[in-house]
């Protein structure tokens, strides 16, 4: 199939491994799905300390289950990416370790206190949900199929994040103040989640034309702000003065781009931002430490081929 035919046929769940897709499509889809899968893994990496530091048994269980879900999403998404025939899962995980794999800007920041957890679990996951819901009708069928499960579980994660936020904002004055401080710090990053408004994205045009992407960054950010500004206020959070956000007459929002730190954003996009680099390297060190187990498994599977020996 040539790109012209792909563009003509592009529609929800239109293409699958049965179709002979042009390389340009397969590369663009791999880039998108790999980014998504990497983000699941690095998000899990960021949240894992709070399994231990959650302040109740039920919360601990919920954090453990959430982190486990993210790893499960990574597993599903790498599989969907592999189905394009460009890279294997091992190659993608290797790229993530080597600092070549890209992932969401918010997961490059450190998370030190429990009061920060709803910034990810409510706001960032809420923002991600907006994007993911549209991806149920992406043109690469395995990706859309993975999104069915991912979106279902993300719904629980956002509820978990919202419940923690509600608990903190109805807690002691100290808890409320700490949470507001965390919100002030995270809010600009959350806005940047959707990328710059006047982005001259080299990838967006093609991805939209072949039906991989369904909505522009601007549309998604707008939908997010419409829903989440009222939610933040409902829980007693004050929206920081910067970046300035103005409501247009048609109800949409205009974010003053100059109020955001784009140097930092692009540094992050290149995996050059210091806390993020530490997080990438930290994960790499943990993975290097268990390399020996994967080697044993590989040998075992080669000698014991034919026997059912699922490595789980």
């Amino acid at each position, binding site marked *: 199939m040539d790109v012209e035919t792909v563009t003509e046929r592009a529609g929800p769940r239109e293409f699958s491994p049965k179709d002979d897709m042009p390389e340009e499509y397969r590369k663009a889809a791999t880039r998108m799905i790999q980014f998504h899968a990497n983000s699941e893994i690095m998000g899990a990496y960021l949240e894992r300390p709070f399994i231990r530091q959650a*302040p*109740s*048994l039920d919360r601990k269980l919920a954090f453990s289950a959430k982190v486990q879900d993210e790893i499960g999403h990574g*597993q599903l998404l790498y599989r969907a990416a592999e189905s394009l025939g460009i890279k294997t899962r091992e190659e993608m995980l290797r790229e993530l370790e080597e600092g070549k794999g890209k992932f969401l800007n918010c997961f490059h920041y450190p998370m030190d*206190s429990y009061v920060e957890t709803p910034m990810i679990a409510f706001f960032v996951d809420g923002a991600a949900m907006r994007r993911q819901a549209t991806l149920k009708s992406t043109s690469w069928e395995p990706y859309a199929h993975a999104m069915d499960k991912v979106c279902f579980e993300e719904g629980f994660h956002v509820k978990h994040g919202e419940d923690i936020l509600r608990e903190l904002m109805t807690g*002691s004055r100290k808890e409320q103040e700490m949470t507001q401080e965390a919100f002030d710090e995270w809010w600009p990053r959350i806005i940047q989640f959707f990328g710059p408004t006047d982005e001259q994205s080299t990838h967006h045009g093609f991805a939209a034309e072949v039906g991989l992407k369904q909505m522009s960054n601007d549309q998604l950010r707008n939908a997010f702000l419409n829903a989440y500004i009222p939610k933040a206020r409902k829980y007693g959070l004050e929206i920081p003065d910067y970046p300035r956000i103005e409501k247009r007459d048609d109800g949409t929002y205009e974010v003053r781009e100059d109020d955001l730190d784009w140097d930092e954003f692009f540094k992050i996009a290149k995996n050059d931002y210091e806390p993020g680099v530490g997080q990438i390297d930290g994960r790499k060190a943990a993975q290097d430490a268990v390399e*020996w187990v994967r080697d044993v*498994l590989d040998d075992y599977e080669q*000698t014991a081929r034919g026997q059912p020996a699922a490595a*789980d």
Partner: protein
Amino acid sequence: MATTDADLGSPGDLDEGEREAVEHLLYRLADDEFVLAERYTEWQVRAPTLESDLSLSNIAQDELGHARLWYDLLEDFGYSESDLVWERPPGEWRHATLSEVPFAEGDWADAVLRSYLYDVAEGIRLSALEESSYARIRDRVPKIRGEEGFHRDHAEGWLERLATDSGGLDRLQSALDRLFPHALALFAPTDPEIEDRIDDLGLRTASLSEMRGEWRSEVEPFLSELGLTVPDADRHTPHGRGGDHTGDWDDLHDDFTHTYRELGRTEARRIMVDPDEAES
């Protein structure tokens, strides 16, 4: 040992001595599960493969769930979750040291061997509770047993795979040498007099030394078959059951209570259904 057909009735029916025995037994059970789960979760996002990450997460959550079931029975006596977990001083915890010692980075051999040593003991311990004279304990055994079977299969499968490799076998041997004395701590008494009372009241139908014998006769041939040498070692001191622990426990306790203290919390939020309501 004396077992009795007498049923001890409900929590309110217990006299002081009976209640003390029940509490000791429950702390043994709950603390082992909670602390081991705490250690297992260290493997989340750090396991060798995405698949093994998911499996170990499941096991950690199962153990946490079991801890929750046992702590819930202590709540029958008026304790809150804060009393039992978040505000209990580290020197009053009664888990065996097997649960608390840390994993060295990348030491997956330790993770699967520890799970095996624990799960065999757990199976034996649950058998001895099936006919407990205390219905609240007896009734919770079947649900927990069902999950422990999966844990054990998981551990055995991994041990068999790692043992096929000479490097893997070396790592397993070094983990066994280190863990075996801590595993023997599983059968140590919290207080010898109270452990006798637990047996006399029929709360448990096998004594600690009977269970230890059964455990040894099960794990030793299996480990030898894998090519491992079971060390001729004594129980670790301290063993944990009496409240005395290794220095690693203080660090772990400090870490998991961090947020509770940082936020100045006085109670633990429940979001899940109470185990008694979930059953009915």
